[in-house]
């Protein structure tokens, strides 16, 4: 390559290109990292919300069942159905977004089991459901830690209490446990993703760091080459010219010159030669 202008321009453009590339890399990597962080946080938040809603729906279902069994309030059948459909809706939402849907099968089974237990009870040919109410109330409130006297119960009541204690409570607790496990699992899934994020953070810094080091090396080389091939030759030519003009020393530039500097030196030499010739002519 010839021409100091070209060399400097290409050198300068290389540095600019490297700056641009390292800037783009850092932007790209930081963007990736930001997206990952946002995804992890929003996934965590959404899963927490969903788990909370599910627990709420399960609670609603439980109290609706108590009302249904204790007071025989048929209106709570709707609440029962609504809370089950809420649970199913939330499950469908999670399933549509989950990367590993098989994980949610256990949750679906829990909801199905609860629904099945209630359906089984409702469809059973036990007429005086309200008569079992007292014993169920005892069981429910007793479970909440309030001391209530056992009112005694007839066969039907015993069967209702038995149903609640053995079948429903079991299914309800199972479901709550599965919802809680879903929440915990979300956290255990987030831990490796956070670790991955940590790695990504390292990876996003490494290219920028390396580009920076290369850029520093190139800037130093650029400075060195400019100094060796531009500044020093200019000084040498200037000194040689000054020596010639001040002390009439022969114009002699030490060291290797390239491109326009060599041309300049040669031209000065020609000019000095012409000037000497002119002087000789004048003397004659």
């Amino acid at each position, binding site marked *: 390559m010839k021409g100091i202008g070209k060399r400097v321009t290409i050198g300068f453009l*290389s540095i600019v290109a490297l700056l641009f590339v390292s800037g783009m890399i850092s932007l790209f990597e930081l963007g990736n990292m930001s997206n990952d962080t946002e995804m992890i946080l929003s996934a965590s938040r959404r899963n927490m919300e969903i788990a909370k809603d599910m627990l709420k729906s399960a609670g609603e279902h439980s109290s609706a069942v108590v009302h249904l069994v204790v007071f025989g309030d048929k209106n709570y059948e709707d609440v029962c159905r609504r809370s089950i459909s809420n649970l199913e809706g939330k499950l469908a939402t999670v399933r549509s977004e989950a990367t590993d849907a098989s994980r949610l099968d256990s949750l679906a089974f829990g909801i199905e089991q609860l629904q099945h237990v209630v359906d089984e009870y409702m469809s059973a040919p036990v007429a005086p459901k309200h008569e079992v109410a007292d014993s169920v109330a005892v069981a429910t409130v007793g479970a909440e830690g309030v001391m209530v006297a056992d009112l005694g119960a007839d066969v039907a009541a015993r069967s209702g209490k038995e149903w609640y204690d053995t079948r429903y409570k079991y299914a309800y607790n199972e479901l709550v446990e599965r919802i809680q496990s879903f929440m915990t699992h979300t956290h255990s899934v987030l831990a490796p993703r956070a670790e991955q994020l940590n790695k990504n953070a390292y990876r996003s810094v490494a290219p920028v760091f*390396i580009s920076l080091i290369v850029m520093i090396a190139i800037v130093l080389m650029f400075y060195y*080459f400019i100094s060796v091939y531009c500044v020093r030759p200019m000084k040498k030519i200037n000194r040689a010219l000054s020596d010639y003009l001040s002390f009439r020393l022969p114009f002699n530039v030490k060291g290797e010159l390239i491109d326009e500097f060599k041309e300049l030196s040669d031209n000065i030499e020609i000019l000095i030669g012409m000037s000497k010739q002119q002087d000789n002519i004048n003397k004659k």
Partner: protein
Amino acid sequence: MRFSIILRYVGTVMLCVSAFMAVSAGISLWNNSDSGFYPLLLSSLLTLLLGAFPMLFVPKVNSITNKEGFVIVVGSWVLACVVGMFPYLIWGGEFSLVNAWFESVSGFTTTGASILDDIEELPQGMLFWRAASAWIGGVGVVMFALVILPSLGTNKMALSNIELSSLAKDNYRYRTQIIVRILLVVYVGMTVVTLALLKVAGMRWFDAVTHAMSAISTCGFSVKNASVGFYDNIWIELILVGAMFAGSLHFGLIYATFTRKANNIFRSEVVRGYIGIILVCSICVAISLFAADIYPTIWSALRKAGFQVVSLISTTGFATADTNLWPPFAIILLIFVSIICACAGSTSGGIKVDRALLSGKLLVAKIRRQQHPNAVIRIRVDGVTQENEQLHSVILFVVVYLALLLIGTIFGTAFGQDLMTAFSSSVACMGNVGPGFGEVGSMSNYSDVPVILKLKDTILMLMGRLEIFGFIQLFFIKSWR
């Protein structure tokens, strides 16, 4: 010293390294743009820029001084190792700054020691880059540049004289240009033949390419955690034994053998000595393994022993067995071959059989001279009388080599390593062998070695690769201006 000229030539070497990084990136791209693509591509571009920049300004020169040549050769090795760690650093995973430096130096110096606990986790592009760095380093980074770049003109001779040790030059009775061509033909030829044979023996293409590159460069980087033991295939082991053996012979002798010249493998005293050491050690190790009831038959013991002896003496470091479990007699023999190593003029490191042979002859000559004080005793190798200067440098090399092993061991024990690990890791790194014994055995790695000792090991690797004096000389160049 003209710093700008040094930068231009080191830049040329960087261009070669960059080209191999680009090829590795291509392999990543071909492998469904695996996670190695972006780190390799970026590293390739940065290295390209670093290498090409000096060429913008520095014009070609007709001659370089000896001092400049030394700085170019050592500087090229060190800088190749520095840029070689870029892909590892960008990729992340197990590669911290020191780990990336260790892996890069280990590759370029063809040591083959690794810090990776799980090699198979690496994407194909990165695995190829590991093998490629070893392949470039096998023939010498500067020689590689000389081989593929015709533009270096008359400076080829100056650089190749510095890159090749005096012993390595002995069997080359050609002009520099031809030596460089011989290197290219023999090195590439042997790699291609090994690759083809490994493929025929049942390896998949990628494994065959990386193992062929690794075997001929006597590096020993495998793409499997269990190294060659993963394949459990007698044919693959036999082919690799052949490749490791060929890679550890003087390339000039291999070329002479194929071109039917007089100074061929069969007539070389050094090669005969080398084969003798391999046979004796393999048989002794096999008998000790069979006697210790480690392998049920003498043949299975011989198979494992033969592979390990050739792997260590050729400074490759592939493994088919956990040698830590072998009896002490077998272990000491393996350490012995790791110190002696292979022939000069090959891709291997270590003291080399040539020097061991000369030392032995010197010892015999000394005894004779004491018996016959007036006798004129000349030391000859392959019929060539050795100059006193040469003999002096051989002895000096052996003494300094052993002294450095001792210093390395002391340093290792000072930082908490047990004696076996400290000594064998120093031997393995100085000789560019790779696996040692103890915590750095054939089936383990250097990941648990303290950071300071990893740095010590990399210095030993570079010293071993540059035959000690080349590396030390850099720090004793009186005038840098």
